[in-house]
Each structure stands twice: as C-alpha cells, then as structure tokens.
C-alpha cells in the first residue's frame, strides 16, 4: 500500500469465503456438488437491506475490486477508480459485494481447486461454465448474504454480460443494471482471438493436457502469449501509438530479437506480471465463458425476445475507441431494452483508451456513472 491511505479508498480489506453444499446444475449438463466463492464487501448493509450493489468482474480479475489487502500491497483492487467513499459506486452509501467467479483461481472453486472426488486438482476435469452458471452461483451468494434484491448489479466487459444475464434470470432481484463496455455476444473475430489465446496455452509443452499441477509446472509461455494477445485487444491503436509509438528502448535498432520497441517491453512486462498469479486452466475456462455468452440464441437470435423477462432500469455505457466490444455492440443491447419499453439510458463516452477505458477515470464516464448511481442511491433511500 502507499504510505498513506487515500481518503477515497476503502483502505485495508479482507476477503471472506462462503461454502455452498447444494449441487449446482450447470448449463453444460454437468453438476458441481459443492463449491466455495471468495468475496469482498465494502460499506455496510442498511437495515432495510436496500443498498446492496453487486460488482461483476471481467475475464482475468477477481473479488478484489477495491482497497488493499495489506500495508505491503502495492496495487489496489481492479476497480479502485470507481469503488470507494465518494466514488461512482459510493461505499458511504452502498454495501458493495464482489466475488471471484466460479472457475476462478483466487479462492473460489475452479480448475486449480481440489476435486473432493479424486483428492486431486480438477484441472481439465473442471466443467465448462457459462455466464448463466455464474449468475446462479452469485444468486446463491446473495441468499447467503441475506440480500433479496440488489439495488444495482454493475459490471464492465464480461462483467456487463453477467449484469445482462442477471436481469434475464432473476428479474425481480435487481432494481438497476449497469452494463459497461459489453456486448450481447462475441463476434467471430472475438472468438478467434480467444481461440489463439487458448491454442497458445494448450500447445505449450508444459500444459500436459491441463494436468500441469501434477508435474509441478505451468504453461507459462502459452499463458504469456495469451495475455499479450489479450492486451493488444484491450488497447486502441491510438493509445498504443500515443503511449509507445515506434519508440525504441535503447534509442537505436539493435538488429536482434531482444526488446527493441517500447511496445514489446510493455507486452512482455504485462505477460510477466500475469504469469505466476493466474491459473492457465482458469484462463481457458474464462475465454470459453465469453464465447458461449449469447442470450439471444435461445430466442432464434432475437435479443429483444431474450430481454423480455427483464424489468430492471438500465444504464449502458460504451467507449468510442473500444474495438473489442465496440459502441455498436452496446447499441444492440440498448435497442433490445427499448424494444421492451424498459427504462434505459445510454452514454457513448469519447475515449482513446480502447476496451480498458472501463477501468479508467474518464470525466464523462465518471459523470454519467455517478449521476446514475446517485439515482440508484436515492431510490434505495441512502
């Protein structure tokens, strides 16, 4: 942690864990008999239990949305910019919950957890998961926490997809849905990027068909490449140009395969800091969750029909330079919502940061997000 805690940080936080021993039937047909979800909470639940906000995380993040785990922690949670006292998701008013999703590798049951049937890590035996399964498991966590209705469920990217699924599967259990930098389904191009990432991991000689734990190793090379590829899709061409351009690390071309351009240095740094902290099987799983998400599929491709059960009020936000989930994808969501006469507002934020913009403090983004959450708070009576 920095020497001094920012007054607008939730400060030191401690994760909790909940155990669920009722089997969960997955979309794939498989069943997980029991599972754990690790989660964090910030702020306090009011007596009416009307001020709870669920934050859903994206591909590679976790339950640690805000604050620090210890004095030694150098980096705060992944959504520190948005979650905290006086911030968009104001912990002075809301009781904020964020869990590591099922299949994760930060304490929730996932491929690196011990399978009680074999007493070995699940590895490739861990069933494939869908966004629906996540929402089901999060609903169990809601019951565990005594939260019948969320004041809002919010999330960016894959997190936004969970918000959509919540509004479809448990319409009565959320008043507001905030869907940021999301898409109603992946395009062929999105799936293609995921497949390259998966192939990088699965063809790594250290992958051992997903049983690398037994060999005391991990497919680090594959995971590094997957992460580098991911990072390229999270940024825009503009911001890459602005950040790195064709800048050379040593100021000159060396005519070798070491890092020459700054962008190479950046990608390698991102890869290095990812490996060792993230389980490769979880990464594979998360990319599949993304690929499978398509609520309209069960309705002949008609998203408006898919959203028919939703009753929540919606705020949808996109970013102009996001080419991974471009504004047009958010507009598809907005159309499905107003086709169903739902209350929806949509803001397209001018930003050059690409998909990653949803993590950043951008004036107009902060303005619309906090304006909307103020309404959520007012309705919740806080």
């Amino acid at each position: 942690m920095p020497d001094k805690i920012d007054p607008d940080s939730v400060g030191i936080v401690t994760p909790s864990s909940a155990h669920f021993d009722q089997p969960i039937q997955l979309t794939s047909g498989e069943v997980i008999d029991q599972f754990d979800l690790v989660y964090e909470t910030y702020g306090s639940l009011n007596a009416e239990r009307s001020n709870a906000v669920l934050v859903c995380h994206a591909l590679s993040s976790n339950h640690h949305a805000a604050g620090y785990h210890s004095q030694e922690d150098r980096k705060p949670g992944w959504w520190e910019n948005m979650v905290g006292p006086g911030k968009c998701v104001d912990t002075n008013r809301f009781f904020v919950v964020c869990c590591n999703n099922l299949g994760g590798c930060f304490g929730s049951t996932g491929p690196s957890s011990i399978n009680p049937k074999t007493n070995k890590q699940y590895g490739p035996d861990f069933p494939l998961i869908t966004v629906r399964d996540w929402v089901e498991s999060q609903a169990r966590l809601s019951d565990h926490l005594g939260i019948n209705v969320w004041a809002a469920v919010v999330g960016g990217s894959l997190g936004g997809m969970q918000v959509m699924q919540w509004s479809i599967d448990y319409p009565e259990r959320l008043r507001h849905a905030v869907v940021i930098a999301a898409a109603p389904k992946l395009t062929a191009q999105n799936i293609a990027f995921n497949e390259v990432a998966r192939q990088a991991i699965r063809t790594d000689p250290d992958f051992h068909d997903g049983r690398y734990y037994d060999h005391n190793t991990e497919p680090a090379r594959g995971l590094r490449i997957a992460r580098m590829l991911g990072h390229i899709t999270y940024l825009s061409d503009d911001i890459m140009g602005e950040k790195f351009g064709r800048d050379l690390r040593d100021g000159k071309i060396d005519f070798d395969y070491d890092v020459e351009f700054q962008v190479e240095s950046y990608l390698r740094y991102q890869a290095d800091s990812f490996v060792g902290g993230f389980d490769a099987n979880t990464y594979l799983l998360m990319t599949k969750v993304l690929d499978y998400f398509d609520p309209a599929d069960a309705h002949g491709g008609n998203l408006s029909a898919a959203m028919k059960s939703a009753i929540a009020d919606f705020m949808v936000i996109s970013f102009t330079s996001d080419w991974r989930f471009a504004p047009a994808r958010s507009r598809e969501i907005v159309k499905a919502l107003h086709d169903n006469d739902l209350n929806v507002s949509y803001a397209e934020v001018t930003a050059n940061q690409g998909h990653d913009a949803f993590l950043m403090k951008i004036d107009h983004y902060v303005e619309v997000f906090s304006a909307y959450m103020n309404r959520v708070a007012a309705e919740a009576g806080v």
Partner: protein
Amino acid sequence: MNNQVIRPDYSIIAEWIEPGSRVLDLGCGDGTLLDYLNFNKSVTGYGIEIDDDNITKCIRAGVNVIHSDLNEGLSEFDEDSFDYVVLSLTLQAMQRPDLLLQEMMRVGSEGIVTFPNFGNWKARLQLALGGHMPVTRSLPNTWYNTPNIHLCTIKDFEQLCKKLGFEILESRAVDHVHKSGLGLKLFPNLLGQVAMYRFRRV
C-alpha cells in the same frame, strides 16, 4: 423539479400530448421537456441527445436518454414504436430535415416539430433592406458560425409536409416569448418567430 415553470412552447407541446403516451424526444437537450411530460402527463419514452453535458443532465434528472446522432437516422427504433416523436428547435440544424421527418413518421404515429420561422418580418426586413443574413432573438447566430444550416419559413415547412404526405393536425405560430395572439393567428408566417406543428401520415 418536474412541474416548475417551463418554456411556453413546451407547455403547448404538453397540451398536444395525450396522457400516458409514448414519446420520443429528438435532441432532448437537458431533458426538461421529457421530465415535464413524465411528471405532468405520465408519458414514457426516451430522449435522443448527442451532447455529453446534456446527457449527464438527463441522467441526473432521471430522464431516459440515448446517445445518438440524429443525422444517422432512427434505424435503431422499429416502426410505430411511439405515439409522438418530438423535434423541438432542432429541424434547422439537421443535414437532411426531410429524411429525419420521414424517419419520425416511420417510428411514430404523430410528429411534433417546432422551428424558428425564417419568414418572420424581422428576418425578411434584415435580408431585404439590410442586405445581410438575419440575426434575431430566435436565430441569434451569425451566418458563418451557426448550427442552423437548414432554415425554412412556415410556408416552406407546410409545402414539405404536403410533399411528404403528412397531414397537419394542429399548428401554432408564436412570438419570442412563445405567446400566440390574434395577429399571429392571422399572419403566422410574417409575425411568428417560432412555428409549432403536430402532424401525421395521411
């Protein structure tokens, strides 16, 4: 909020709108009209806006607002989705007013349009005798720096409605404080500063 004193042209629009109807407000600004209609006429619907600050203001006011560029049409809305589509003092700033009017009649049963009347005597006088592009209370911009790229008169607008096959159901010409006296009823195109129309497809 909601029921405060508002622009007189808004109260005329509100008179024209049936309670409980579905309204699409094109170029809704800070959401004042929709907020007023929500509160006083229990309407539902959406505002379309392109300005970031206005979008924030709408969200703050609890008005449904959708960021969109009207020049790109209303293709995200299905046919006959709304009882009324309102275009208030925005027509003259559109690249193709005729196409937008047609879009309005595709997605809504009735259209309500207000625009600054270029046929007003002050504008005529400034052009005819002054020999320069008019600058008036309802058209305050200079010709070289104005969002108003397609100015028209009451006569022009009525001709366009005819050409597009719209039936004018109600109209009003008002002065700069949006009042409508006898003179305005007799000589709308000469005395009216702002023209207001309610129309539908024939």
